[in-house]
């Protein structure tokens, strides 16, 4: 959900871009963190924990807590609260420690 009206703030947003989450097409704004676009789309589970496969989401927003690690364009353990969104990005829910895969 985007904030459309705010008593103090206006939001400058980049170009609209599309990306995929586990193959599903989603939209966001270029340059915002991937996690912001996912949150807007209502996606809360970003990865599964290593031992117990518990859901993990967005927690600190400043790249410190490791809760939001996902696989982006084949690269595991990307902090999506920091990583800027680009057109055509392939984002995947990370399971376990994360593995490299061929770029799609």
């Amino acid at each position, binding site marked *: *959900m985007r904030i459309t009206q705010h*008593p*103090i703030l206006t939001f400058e947003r980049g170009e609209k871009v599309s990306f995929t989450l586990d193959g599903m097409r989603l939209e966001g704004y270029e340059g915002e963190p991937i996690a912001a676009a996912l949150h807007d789309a209502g996606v809360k589970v970003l990865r599964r924990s290593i031992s117990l496969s518990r859901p993990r*989401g*967005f927690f*600190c927003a400043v790249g410190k807590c490791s809760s939001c690690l996902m696989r982006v364009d084949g690269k595991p353990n990307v902090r999506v609260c920091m990583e800027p969104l680009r057109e055509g990005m392939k984002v995947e829910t990370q399971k376990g420690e994360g593995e490299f895969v061929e770029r799609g």
Partner: protein
Amino acid sequence: MREVEVVIVGGGPAGLSAAGIAAQAKAEVLLIDDGQHLGGQLVKQTHKFFGSKEQYASTRGIEIGHILEKGLEGYSNLEVWLNSSAVGDYPDGVLTVLKGERLLKVKPKRLIVATGASERMLAFANNDLPGVYGAGAVQTLMNLYGVLPGRRALMVGAGNIGLIVSYQLLQAGVKVEAVVEAMPKVGGYWVHAAKLKRIGVPILTSHTILKAEGEDWVEGAIICPLNEDFKPIEAAQKRVEVDIICLAVGLSPLSELLWQAGCRMKYIPQLGGYAPLRNRDMETTVKGVWVAGDSAGVEEASTAMVEGRIAGLAAASSLGYEVENTDGLKREVREELEMLRRGPVGEMVREGAKRALI
């Protein structure tokens, strides 16, 4: 490997202030920040600051960040690296920096650590569920990126951050079901609490959260009153329907680089955890390593700016760079710092700062 006279790690209020004054003194300065923009956490602070004119009172945090950043313009002796994390400080004084995807080595003659603080966690059942956020994260998501974390929130902690972020949630259109606070009274300034009370948000003191409920994300929370010994009175627990649990239970200094550099650290609860011992110039026990802002002890952005100026001035002057009337200015900023910590509100920090002083 790049040699630089003054390296400042962290581009928040402390680091920006340090960079500004060191650059003004004509030292060669490299400012490193891991984010996409300067300003640190000021970039999401929509509330107006208190204090005096020197610390930008009644200006919003966001604007203060812009003012400080503007102050760095026009210095050819200052370089800024964004998207760059200082990841290691080595015994030979080399700092490794992950700049984008490249690992670079930098050798600072003087290092100022202004890395800020991180949010504390709280132990309760299911505290790892998506939908449990640090208060700062909620602020970032809403105020910087314009995205809502959910519809209904429980705030844990009635210190200034908990109160301010609750109000900001309301401004963004989120319903705040309640603020719970383990202490018997509100910790933050009354003016922030009053804003919530007027809107009808219950602030439940002597209350805590026992459990987050939900399968894959937060769908509710169990809250509970506490007795005088801070033990939950479980018979009186109740469920609130929320999809956001926001934790505002304090901050701790981000001190990894200081530990790595070998600075003597001391556990000082009044400063939020382990803090480096330092002298009045903010120099640590390791010669050539300074500290400023929340990484020196959790306080306010206003004191961080003043500490940044103290450290920046001292680091530059130790290399022989002076501004006009350095000694007078040093005295002036020290007085500012004392003034900011005056009164009953500053009592805790005054005590903490005293314990960290060598």
